[in-house]
């Protein structure tokens, strides 16, 4: 099975970055449900419109965990508007690709990110 995943995916699966809760998050994303096999929670910390920290918790397969880990890495240091432009393809590419049947995991990561940013804007309306 390992052979189906790229080295990058396995690396992020074995050593996921930024796992955990963030009680004082500025934006929280929650997507998925147990029936489809994936649930992703994404937390963002924002300072001066820049994402300074990100954390996640994921219920899902190897690809779901790896895409969650990767998306938290990708957003750190980006402005909120830049982060909003990160697509599921970008997450998959950063991981060296995903098996076709697992592409929906990257979509979930994109949705989690969008959901967290939407939540951030709700709490911190643009002036």
């Amino acid at each position, binding site marked *: 099975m*390992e052979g189906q995943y790229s080295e990058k995916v396995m690396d992020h699966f074995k050593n996921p970055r930024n796992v*955990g809760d963030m009680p004082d998050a500025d934006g929280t994303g929650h997507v998925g449900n147990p*029936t489809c096999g994936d649930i992703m929670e994404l937390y963002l910390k924002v300072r001066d419109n820049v994402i300074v920290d990100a954390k996640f918790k994921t219920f899902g397969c190897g690809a779901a965990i790896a895409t969650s880990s990767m998306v938290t890495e990708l957003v750190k240091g980006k402005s909120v508007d830049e982060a909003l432009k990160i697509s599921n393809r970008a997450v998959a590419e950063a991981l060296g690709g995903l098996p076709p049947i697992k592409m929906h995991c990257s979509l979930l990561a994109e949705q989690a990110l969008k959901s967290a940013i939407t939540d951030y804007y709700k709490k911190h309306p643009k002036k």
Partner: protein
Amino acid sequence: MEKVYLDHNATTPLDPFVLEAMLPYYKDIFGNASSIHEPGRLARKGIDEARVKVASLLGAKDPDEIIFTGSGTESDNYAIKGAAAALKSRGNHIITSSIEHQAVLNTCKFLENSGWRVTYLPVDKFGVVDMEELKKSITAQTILISIMYANNEVGTIQPIDQIAKIAKEKGVLFHTDAVQAAGKTPVDVSKLGVDMLSLSAHKIYGPKGVGALYLRKGLKITPLLHGGHHEKNRRAGTENVAGIAGFGKAAELAAKNMREEVTNIKALRDRLEKGILEKIKYTYLNGHPENRLCNTANISFEFLEGESIILNLDMEGISVSTGSACTSGSLEPSHVLTAMGIDTVRTQGSIRFSLGKWNSEEDIDYVIRILPPIIEKLRKMSPLYKET
């Protein structure tokens, strides 16, 4: 690194005695079993001997009741499509269960597309088919009942003798997929009174690419393959002589050693099951507590998805599998656990441990040692898990 293989319901390693029995047919005995010259006769003899051994494992009275095929899947296809084609003037209804292997389920779905009616019987929380439901679903149009002997995912064994009796009373043919049961529990076609039964060599330490269909004497079904006169006109195609010889040896070994092996494997399985359920919280056994294959333990690790557990165990040299979502190439959760009414989260987090004759106590203790920290690490990552 330690290597512990606990996926014997997927496939078993080849027994060295089986390999030894096959090798002559890859070297000197190369003849076509249909040829009348000596090389052909030697190949024929190899097939005939294997047929006797497979018949003997099943308690079949006549070796000619055994037809060699290319796989368990082919045997299932043959039994169901063959019976349907042969009996289409008598009715258009087939009864099966909702927890069959895809080889049966998808064959039935295929027939549904060409006008057949199929009833998929429900099962209880242990995965047992309800006999009253079975009786109720039989109509004048029913020509075949196909219900598996033992389930590949959870190991639950069906009351095959009762089903055979009901089928006989109603004059309906009965086929059972015994691919997982053979070699793990005594299977006796004469005592049970089944009409057709599917087998596969690679689940009993034989080679891949060989299966068999037991077809009760006198029963005629329509062949899947048309061509030469092989297998008494019942399965055309030059025989896989080496594979069949290997199947024969595997059947012989299974018949001889089953009693002892079953005792050992069951003790190890129980040790594994007890170890996991005691050491790890929020774990649940799926399948029948007693009427279950001696080697199978399907356990749900709540709050987790199965694949993440499998990958972590794989990194430690432990091979297991799951019927659930992602890993099997489908995104649907296990149809077996779903039919048993297991809730979705527990279905997603189910792992199948299936033991074999060469597993040791050390193997089991290694798994029991390795597993708890993996589960803990993954649960820390799960949004469904709140530490208490």
